C-alpha cells in the first residue's frame, strides 16, 4: 500500500473523528476517501499493524495517539497548502484542495512551517462555521491570547486572519505592541487593554492573535 494512501486515510480519520469526536464508521470513511470498502480494509489492516489505529467491535475505527498525531500533521499540511494556493496564488478553491491533496505527502515539515509562518496559518476558509473544535496554534511554541489568563502582561507576536486584520491593526494590535489581558470569561470572550483603550474580542479573533509574556 502506498504511503500517500495511508496518509490520506489517517487525515480522513482525523477530520471525521474531530468533528464527531467518536469512533469513525466505515461508511463515513469510504465516502470521504471515495474508495471501495476492500481498498479501505487493506489500508486499515496496514495501519492497525503499525499501531496507528484500533478497531472496535462492529468495524468502527478509532485513532491511537500516534495515529492522531500523524493525521493531524497531514491535515495541517493540507490546510496550509490549500491556504497558500487560494489566498496567495489565487487558485480556485476546489482545484487548490485537489492540488494540496497531492502535494501534502511529499512536502517536508520545514517547508510547511516556513510557509505557515509566511501566510499565518488561519486563512479565512479554514474557519468553517459550525466546527466547534479548537484550532491549535500555527507554530509549535506559539501561544494565542486564549492561552493566557486574566491580568497577564503580553506582547503581540503576530496576527492572523485577513478578514479582521485591518481593524485590529488600526486599534494598535500590531506585532511588538504591549497589551494586557484584562478580562477572560469562561466562554473565552476576552477584553484586552491596548494603548489605554479596552477592546472586546470574540474567541475566534483572540485565537488568531499570537502573543508572548512580557518580561
Amino acid at each position, binding site marked *: 500500500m502506498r504511503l500517500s494512501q495511508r496518509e490520506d486515510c489517517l487525515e480522513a480519520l482525523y477530520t471525521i473523528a474531530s468533528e464527531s469526536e467518536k469512533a469513525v464508521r466505515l461508511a463515513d470513511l469510504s465516502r470521504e476517501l471515495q474508495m471501495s470498502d476492500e481498498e479501505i480494509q487493506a489500508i486499515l489492516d496496514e495501519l492497525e499493524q503499525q499501531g496507528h489505529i484500533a478497531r472496535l467491535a462492529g468495524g468502527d475505527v478509532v485513532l491511537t495517539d500516534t495515529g492522531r498525531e500523524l493525521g493531524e500533521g497531514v491535515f495541517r499540511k493540507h490546510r496550509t497548502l490549500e491556504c497558500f494556493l487560494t489566498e496567495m496564488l489565487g487558485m480556485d478553491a476546489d482545484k487548490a484542495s485537489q492540488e494540496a491533496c497531492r502535494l501534502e505527502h511529499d512536502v517536508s515539515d520545514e517547508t510547511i512551517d516556513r510557509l505557515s*509562518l*509566511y501566510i499565518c496559518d488561519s486563512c*479565512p476558509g479554514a*474557519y468553517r*462555521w*459550525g466546527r466547534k473544535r479548537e484550532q491549535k496554534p500555527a507554530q509549535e511554541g506559539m501561544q494565542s491570547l486564549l492561552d493566557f489568563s486574566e491580568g497577564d502582561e503580553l506582547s503581540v507576536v*503576530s*496576527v492572523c486572519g485577513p*478578514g*479582521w*486584520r*485591518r*481593524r*485590529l*491593526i*488600526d*486599534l*494598535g494590535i*500590531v*506585532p*511588538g*505592541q504591549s497589551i494586557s489581558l*484584562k*478580562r477572560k*470569561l*469562561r*466562554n*473565552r*470572550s476576552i*477584553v484586552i487593554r491596548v*494603548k*489605554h*483603550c*479596552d*477592546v*472586546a*474580542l*470574540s*474567541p*475566534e*479573533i483572540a485565537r488568531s492573535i499570537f502573543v508572548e509574556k512580557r518580561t
Partner: protein
Amino acid sequence: MKVALIGNPSVGKSLIFNQLTGIGVEVSNYPGTTVELKGGSTCYQREMIDIVDLPGIYSLDGTSEEEELVRTFLLEGKADAVIVVMDATRLERNLYLLLQVAEFGIPMIAVLNMIDEMEKAGLEIDTTALEYQLGIEVLQTAASKGRNIEKIIPLVRSSARPATLTVPYDRSVEAAVRTLEKTLGAGRTESLWALQGIKKDFALFEAASAITEQIEARHRMTIQQIIAANRHNYARTIADRVIKKREARKRFDLDQLLTGTIPGIPILILVLLSTLLFVFIVGAFLEETIVEAFQILLIDPLLGLGLPPLVETIALSLAIALQAGLGIAFPFVFIFYILLSILEDTGYMTRAAFLADNAMHRVGMHGGAIIPLILGLGCNVPAVMGLRNLTSRREKIIGAFLITMVPCSARTVIILGIVAAFVGILPALTIYLIVFLLITATGLLLSRFTPGEQYGMILEMAPLRLPQAELVIKKSWMRMQEFLFIAMPMLLVGSIFLGLFEFFGITAMFEELIAPFSEGVLGIPSYAATALLFGILRKEMAFEMLAILGGTANLSAMMTSLQLYIFALVSVLFVPCVSTIAVLFREMGGRITAAVTFYTVGLGIIIGALVNLLFG
C-alpha cells in the same frame, strides 16, 4: 469655507458639531452612529462656514464603507480645512488617525476633547509641545461642558495649516515610495495606499504590488502591518513626549463588576428587565392621566356640542387619534428613549455586547449585534440602520430578520394597552416570552442556513461615564421628534379616513369580505382585522384603530380575553411597519425585505391561528 470634523468613533465629534451648528444630530457613546454625512453651517464674522460631520473611523486606509467615504471626501478636496477631534484620554490611539490625515496636506487644526476627563484621570498634555510636534494648532476642549468650543471656528479661520510632521516609515517602505514617486510620478500618500493594496490608479497598483511582495517576504509581516506599526510607533513617541504625568489611577474600576460572568450577566438581565418594567409602570401611569385629561377636556365637550353628523365624525376621529397618539404612545416611547440614551451615554451598551457575545454566536451573529437588537426595543428603524456596523452579509440578513421581530415601543404599547390592561400582567409577559422564543428559534434556524462567513467581534469598549441629564433629554427628544412629526400626522390622516370610511359604510363592506377569514382562522371579529391592517402603517395604530372602530376605549366590552390576546399577539408578530419596510429595502434590498415581510406575516397568522385552535 467648508470645514470637516474628523475623528475616532465616540470622541465627542457629533457633540461639537451640534454646538457649532446648533443643528440636532444624534450623539452616541458607542462606535459608529453617524454613518451618513451630516452637514450644517454657522456664521463667523459675516462669513458662512459649512461644517461637515464625517463618520467616526479608526483609520483612513481601511476598506469599510465609512473609511472609503471619508477618504474620498478628503481626496476630492471637498474640505478647505479639517478639524481633527481627539479624545485626550486616548491620545496615542487618536494620534494614529491624525498622522494619516496629516498626509493629505489639507490645512488642519487638532482639538483635544474631553480634557475634563483627562484631568480626572490625572493626566496633563503639554499643548505647546504637541503643537510643535505636529506643526499645527492644538485646542483643548470639553464638549460636554461647552468649554472652549466657541474658539474652534476662529482658530480654524485664522490659523489652520497643513501639518509639518512626516511619519518615519521603515526603510524598505520609504524606498518603495521613492521608487513609485520616481517611476510613476505618484505622490507620497497615493504611493502608500497603492502599497497597501488600495486600487486607485491601475499602473500604480500593479507596480506597488510587485514591490509589496518583496517587502513582505523580507519582513514576514504584511505591508499593512509594517506601515501601521510605523505610525503607531510614531504616535507613541509623540504621546510620550507631550503627556506630562501619569498618576496611577486608584479609582475603583467598575468594569470589574460589569464585565465578569458573575455579577455581570445578572446585572445585564436586571438592567434590561428594570428598563422594561420602569417603562411599563411609569408609562402606564402617565398614559392613564393623559387619556383621562383628553376625555374630560376634549372628547366629552366635543360630543356635547351637537355638531352635524359628518363634521362630528371627522372631529371625533381627530380627537381620538390625538388622545391615542399623545396619551398612549408618547409616555411609553419617550420614557424608553430616555432610558436608552442613559444606557448609551454611560457606555454600558458595549459591556452588554461583550457579555452577550457567546450567546449571539449561537444565533449566527456576534456580540456587537446586541446593540441594534436593544435599539430595536425602542424602534426598529434606527436598529435596522445599525445593521451597517455588522461586517458580513450573513450577519446582516440574520440581523434583519431578528430585529424586525423585536417588540419595539409601539408594540409594547399594544401589549400593555390591550393585554396587560384588559387581560392581565401575566398573559402580557407570555407574549414577550413567545416573541423571545420565536426570535431565538429564528436565529438558530437562520444561522444554520444562511450562507456566508462568520466574523467575530472586535469592539472598542466605550469609557464608562456618568450621563448628563441635559444631553440625555436632548437626545431622547431628538428621537422623539420623529415620532411626533412623522407618526402623528399619519395617525391623524389615517384616523380621518377611517372615520369617513365608517361614515359612508365602506368599513362595513370590507369587514364583510374579511370576516370568514378573521373569524374562522384567528377567531377575532372582522373590525379587529381591519385594525390589524392599520398596524402596517404604525404598529400602535392597530390598537388605536381598534378603539376607534370599536367605538370605545374599554376593549373588554367588545371582545373576549382570548380575542384580545390573539389580536395583540398577531399584531406584535406580523409585518414590520411601513417605515421599517422602507428602511429595510434601502439597507438590504428587495429580496430580503420581501422575505422578512412574508416570514413575519406567516409567523403572525400561524401563531395566532395556533393559539385560537388550542384555546378557542
